[in-house]
């Protein structure tokens, strides 16, 4: 599964047509063009449009254009493609670009949960135009239904 193209930075590939079940831990970035089901841990994960990942994932960075299902913990997430039902994405930073009104949907979200960044507080915070930030932000009491 290691870099099929030879040179350059080593990457772990799960190629199109490959289905992987089980636990995968890598010190190299993982690129999924096939299907992965299980636990996955790596510095980064790239899921191509043909790729699908289902399971528990812990990575530094995640870029997905494919299909995600399960629990995903990452520092930075760039998302397009599909997020299936019962999926949880936790990240410090999430980016989803807006598609033109007539274009294809950038992301199709199923019934899922997104936990991104610090817990927002109703109080004024530092770094925002509206106030100064507390050092350790109080996770607000407001989180109904989530």
């Amino acid at each position: 599964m290691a870099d099929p193209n030879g040179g350059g930075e080593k990457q772990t590939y799960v190629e199109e047509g490959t289905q992987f079940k089980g636990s995968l831990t890598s010190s190299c970035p993982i690129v999924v063009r096939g299907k992965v089901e299980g636990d996955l841990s790596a510095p980064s994960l790239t899921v191509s449009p043909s790729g699908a990942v289902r399971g528990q994932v812990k990575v530094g960075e995640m870029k997905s254009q494919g299909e995600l299902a399960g629990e995903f913990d990452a520092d930075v997430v760039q998302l397009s493609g599909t997020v299936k039902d019962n999926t949880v994405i936790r990240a410090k930073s999430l980016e989803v670009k807006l598609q033109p009104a007539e274009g294809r949907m950038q992301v199709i979200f199923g019934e899922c949960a997104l936990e991104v960044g610090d817990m927002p507080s109703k109080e004024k915070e530092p770094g925002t135009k509206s106030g100064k930030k507390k050092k350790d932000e109080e996770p607000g009491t407001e989180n109904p239904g989530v």
Partner: protein
Amino acid sequence: MPDFTADVILWKIKRGEKIDRADLRGIQMQKAVLDGASFRRCDFEGANLEGVRLAKANLKNASFREAYLAGADLREANLDNADLEGANLEAAMLAGANLGRANLEGANLSGADLSGARLTHAQLDSANLAGAKLSGAILSHADLVECDLGIAQLDKADLTSANLESANLEEASFVEANLSEADLREVNAKGAKFGGASLHRATLAKGNFTGADLANVDLRGAKLDDAKLDGATLTGAKISGVMASGASFANLRADWADGSPDGNGRNRVTGADVVAATLMGKVTTPVATKRYFGKGDVLRNASLQFDEGASVEIESLFEQCSIALGQGTELVIGAEGTLSGCQITGAGNITIHGKFFERASPGIAGASQLIVTSGGALVGAVEQPEGATRFAFEPGCRLRMKITQKNGKNGRQ
């Protein structure tokens, strides 16, 4: 008789000599290799230079009147202020060439590659540019009167203030080109593609744009009087300030157009008939009903309804409020705005720069579009309508968000 024979020229070039200001009229140098040579102010009138290689040559102020340069390689050549009137440059390679202020009146450039070439203030009137490649070329202030640009490719070209009066643009491609303040009166642009181009303050009067693709073009302030746009596509075009008296719009294809003066999409005109009527001045472009709730205001336990086309901006604190949005209503929660314990329903477009905290789940239901920008925060559930919500999240946004589906179709396992 030319000052030099072809052999002498080749010998001089080989020695690295410049051949400036020479009289080379009528010289025969087909397929000669002259890359990088200097022929400044030389006179090549009537010369046969078919297939000659002059890439990166210095041909500034040279004259090629009536010269035969078909298939010549002039890539990145400097032809600044050169005289190419009546020259035959069929299928010549001129990518990246500098033709600023050059005289190409009546020249044959059919099938030539002028990608990225500089043609500012060039004279191209009555030139034949049919099928030419001009993508990314700079043609600002160029004179293209009565020239033939049929099926030419001008994607992302800069034609600012260019004069294309009575030119043939049939089936040409101007995708994302800049035609601001250009003169396109009486052009034949049947089936031409202008998708995403800027025609801001351009003159298109009496032009024939039958079947042309004008989707997402910026037509603000353009003059379309007596133009023919039958079967044209105008979806997403910016149309504020267009003058189109006497224009025809039969079978116009326009799901919507943007009537806002600053082209920000906040004032949509929906439906081809309404777009056509708006363009012809029979319907005044509706001005979006704008509501603004300023910083420092507090609104509690209120129920608010904003109809279709309205534009709402909130910089205040809203507590325990219900907001109903009409189709396409723009709701912006400003950086200073907080909606605490609130609920938003309806097919509006919501942008959150500030904060939103839901009251009951779902806090947001049926939105067409939801954007949370880098300073924005959202705590609550979002119920997508049947057609799904278009989401955008900028890095830096904070979310504790549950996404649900009204009929549970999306993302089913």
